């Protein structure tokens, strides 16, 4: 009889298999969603239903108990789309704006003589993010905030395209095999949670939103690293640079900056 109808309730094997699985499942859910949350204060404070919801990963109010928002970091989400550049007319428009508003500090060809950052060959998403941060006040700077406030999103995109089209001050990134580079640049310091510079800024890998640093003015790099360390500059996504610089000494900042600012022997 059992051979004829294995999937019938009258078959004891079938019946007990199903009952056992249901009992086990219901029991696990009861323990996981009712019994265990009952001994946690933060689960039970708003009643049984709330505690079940929390155990399911869905608190009724997501931000309950969250502290007030601190000083803004950045609202710009760096996605690969920002790295796309426009065509020839975007370069032309960008050049027109740049010559009028940027070249005094950043140099006629995007290479600064005034310890402002070089922009020639800079990644478009970097220019885009920094300009948006200035515009929204997330990055400090009296001149830059004023200039950025008057630029439209398209203006910024065109400027980014224009600067990206110019030749870089140095085209080869520092490599891990370059033993003249400071250890922090090549391999970082894992025990202090300092990642190698070249893991994001080119050399080993380039991460979206990380600027091209080769040939940057040394004084600018020192100032930025110190500002990150003190928190005076805070527009880095997820506090990445603030975390990297927190453990760096003045000497290490100077070494790293000097390395990236180095000139080729022929210069």
């Amino acid at each position, binding site marked *: 009889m*059992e*051979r004829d109808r294995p999937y019938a309730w009258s078959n004891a094997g079938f019946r007990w298999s199903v009952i056992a699985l249901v009992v086990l499942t219901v029991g696990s859910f009861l323990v996981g969603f009712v019994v265990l949350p009952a001994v946690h204060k933060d689960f039970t404070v708003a009643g049984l239903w709330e505690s079940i919801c*929390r155990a399911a*990963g869905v608190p009724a109010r997501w931000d309950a108990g969250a502290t007030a928002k601190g000083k803004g970091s950045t609202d710009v989400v760096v996605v*690969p789309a920002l790295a796309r550049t426009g065509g020839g007319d975007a370069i032309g428009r960008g050049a027109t704006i740049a010559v009028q508003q940027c070249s005094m500090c950043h140099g006629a060809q995007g290479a600064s003589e005034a310890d402002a950052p070089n922009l020639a060959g800079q990644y478009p998403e970097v220019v885009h993010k920094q300009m948006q941060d200035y515009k929204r006040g997330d990055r400090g700077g009296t001149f830059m905030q004023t200039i950025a406030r008057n630029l439209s999103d398209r203006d910024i995109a065109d400027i980014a395209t224009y600067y990206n089209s110019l030749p870089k001050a140095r085209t080869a990134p520092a490599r891990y095999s370059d033993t003249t580079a400071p250890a922090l640049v090549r391999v970082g310091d894992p025990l202090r949670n300092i990642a190698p510079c070249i893991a994001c800024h080119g050399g080993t890998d*380039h991460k979206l939103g990380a600027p091209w640093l080769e040939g940057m003015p040394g004084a600018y790099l020192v100032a930025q690293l110190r500002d990150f360390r003190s928190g005076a500059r805070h527009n880095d996504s997820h506090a990445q640079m603030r975390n990297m610089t927190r453990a760096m000494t003045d000497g290490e900042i100077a070494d790293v900056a000097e390395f990236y600012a180095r000139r080729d022997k022929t210069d």
Partner: protein
Amino acid sequence: MFLARRLVLAHFWVAFAGFLLAILLGEWQMYVRSPLHGWVNNPEHYYRSVTAHGTVMAYVLPTLVAMGFGYSICELALKRPLIGLRWAWAGFGLVVAGTVIAAATVAVGRASVLYTFYPPMIASAWYYIGVVLVVVGSWIWVALMSINLRAWRKANPGATVPLAMFGNVTGAYLWAWTSVGAAVEVLVLILPAALGLRDVIDAGLARVLFSWTLHAIVYFWLMPAYIAFYSIVPRAIGGRLYSDTMGRVAFVLFLVFSMPIGLHHTFADPQVGAGFKFVHAAMTAMVSVPTLLTVFTIVASVEIAGRLRGGKGAFGWVKALPWDNPMMLAVTFAFVMLGFGGAGGLINMSYQLNETIHNTQWVTGHFHLIFGGAIVIMYFMIAYELWPQLTGCATLPKGLVKAQLWLWFVGMMVLSMPWHLVGLLGMPRRMAYYDYTHPALQPQAWTVTASAIGGLILVVSAVLFVYVLATARRTSDSPAPFTFSAPAHAGERTPALLNTFGLWVGMMIALTIVNYGFPIVQLASLPGTAVPAISVGGP
């Protein structure tokens, strides 16, 4: 065998060639981060190697072994030619093509995301396409196993499916359902980002979907070993299988419980509710039941062999066992490693204990011991057992085989025990280098050297394994017919439920929906959870 001889040989050779290359990469990884070598200057090279090692060892090797062994069982246990030989070759072609595409992408440094993908890291689309091809190739195998079983049933109405085939089809159904999680993750979330169609990815949802696959895939790896435990070991050592029914119970329990437990891999993930984490932990505990049943049944079967050979008393049968027999050695080593690995696994699955070892070298030690140790050593035995059938060679040289097994066991213990120890001390996994000059790390430096030495022993064993297989010469065209274990109680009636899969597949799907349905739907419908995709492998 009838038709599948060349097919199975092709599966095994590709599997073992990949295995040999991947084990060399593994040993290189251990060497460069040990004190025997300076810091690896470019950590990217390390992660590239880890990705290749994991992809081959976790996807290519077990899939091809399970497929090849499955085709052999189809012909040897059902005693009829394989249906769908051309389709089987097509599936093999897909697996090989996928492996080559994925391996090439990893080799040029465009896919150093590790075999578990880890979104929001995004590799070149070719890597995922390669992995998908491997999985699609294996789905053809799943379909063929089902079709062959159906045809056999039609020709033998009312007959009991041989245990080996029952386990084989269990493994196929298990794999078909468990691969759905990662397939959805890759097709819906990862590939659109990898192809540049989307800039963002819901990393939390992706991890939950992957966990659906990540744990049950382990039982897919394990299935060939368990089939060998039940259907080959007792015969090979001159014993009887203590209980055929117990084997079936163990197989169907794996089917029901291996899927809906994967969230124990996400204990540290904030997007999953604590309630679901508990339910999955509780069900993970259930999965130890079929393993304990298996250990009991196989030890009882081995005891039968010992008593048949004249062993007496409570422990006299142990002494009487055929210790000279490679299979005896292999099953002993496998159970020792399964014991340590299983005990470690109970710690991993416990919500609180997991906190102490989460993402440490303990975890690396655990899965090397249980997969690389207990399961792969049975893969070796499966190959040794089938080789005379496949190549017409005589029985393989016993001395070399035993030396190979000893080296594998010793190597695996020397490799993985130090990992367990330093894992407890907090050494993180997936590190390209450790700073041994630091006074807090210096005392642990020797453990990494020890593991590197263990890895070297494993390399020697792997080379010996391939050497034994490669040097086997044809001695006859008609090898002695292959036999499976005979049960101790002949004529035992198999309950109809344990001769079919309907109830168990139904339970498997229902339990997966109950345990995964809500978290997946909730995460998928939650707005604002996507994060920027981070492409890996830039200039």
